[in-house]
């Protein structure tokens, strides 16, 4: 018999960006070492999948919001560890333009997923993924795989495997910083002088 061969995918949050520091108007400093610089981010592939109520959900519906796109499954222990974090992040940040969107990779679909969602009291939207969805996101061979997507629909970071809660929170917080507020920390020209030119 063939040897059971588990794909040896390295666990790593893709460290794609330089060390970034943003300062918000509330003076809180957020460090997110792994976010790609905005100019290097690629557009997250769009998809259309059904939620638990049978409604079609498109990633593009979320344009303008920061999205935590989580590929997970009920049988995945590390995924299950992250879910309470995501529930809390959803509750705390929903009003700031943040949404968690879970893509379940359970082969049996809602039969397995619905009871789990009720048990865990999941407060964010879940859709059932498929091989095609996984393919357009690079295969998603291991779970959890979590994408942080900025307000322009671009992938800012990918975390493959269980990641620290702080790393995810810091990434979300950085992406939620309004550009205008970040700009306040830079030089601000009086509007009048600009108009006079």
């Amino acid at each position, binding site marked *: *018999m*063939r*040897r*059971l*061969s*588990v*794909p*040896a*995918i390295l*666990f790593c949050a893709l460290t794609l960006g330089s060390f970034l520091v943003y300062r918000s108007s509330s003076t809180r400093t957020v460090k997110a070492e792994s976010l790609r610089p905005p100019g290097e981010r690629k557009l997250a592939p769009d998809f259309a999948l059904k939620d638990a109520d049978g409604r079609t959900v498109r990633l593009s519906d979320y344009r303008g919001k920061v999205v935590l796109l989580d590929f997970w*499954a*009920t*049988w*995945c*222990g*590390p*995924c*299950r*560890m992250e879910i309470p974090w995501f529930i809390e992040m959803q509750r705390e940040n929903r009003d700031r333009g943040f949404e968690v969107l879970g893509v379940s*990779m359970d*082969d049996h679909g809602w039969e*397995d997923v619905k009871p*789990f969602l009720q048990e865990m009291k999941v407060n964010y939207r879940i859709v059932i993924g498929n091989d095609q969805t996984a393919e357009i996101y690079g295969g998603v*061979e*291991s*779970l*959890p795989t979590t994408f942080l997507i900025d307000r322009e629909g671009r992938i800012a970071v990918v975390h*493959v*495997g*269980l990641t620290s809660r702080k790393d995810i929170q810091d990434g979300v917080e950085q992406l939620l910083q309004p550009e205008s507020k970040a700009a306040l920390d830079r030089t601000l020209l009086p509007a009048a002088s600009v108009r006079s030119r």
Partner: protein
Amino acid sequence: MGAIGKVEGKRNAAVVARIPVTVEAGYHVNSNSPLDEYLIPLKVSWTAKGSLVGGELVYPKASIEKYEFADKPLSVFAGSFEIAAGFKVAADAPAGPGIAAGKLTYQACNARMCFRPATVDISIPYQVD
């Protein structure tokens, strides 16, 4: 790891095939009886038994392990182990060689990630004397 050894017997004889499995270091697979209803068990199923009948499976004793990502301990297999499959040679089996076929389904994880369920083919060569 080598192939499954050939089993040999006369008609009506009881034979046992041993299915050797090795899980890569650092990974585990759920046992045949996970302690959590959502987990996917390791499972052998038969697709074609040829001249063999039965195929009762005896899985090894599972390890009960605690992982950081789970509140409760899990029942897992890791490293190298064997699954025994007990057959009987059919009373009307023609003498000669044959192949019994099956599938092994498993779902593997390490401490930080899990892989989607996978299936590998099993082939048991046999000889009816």
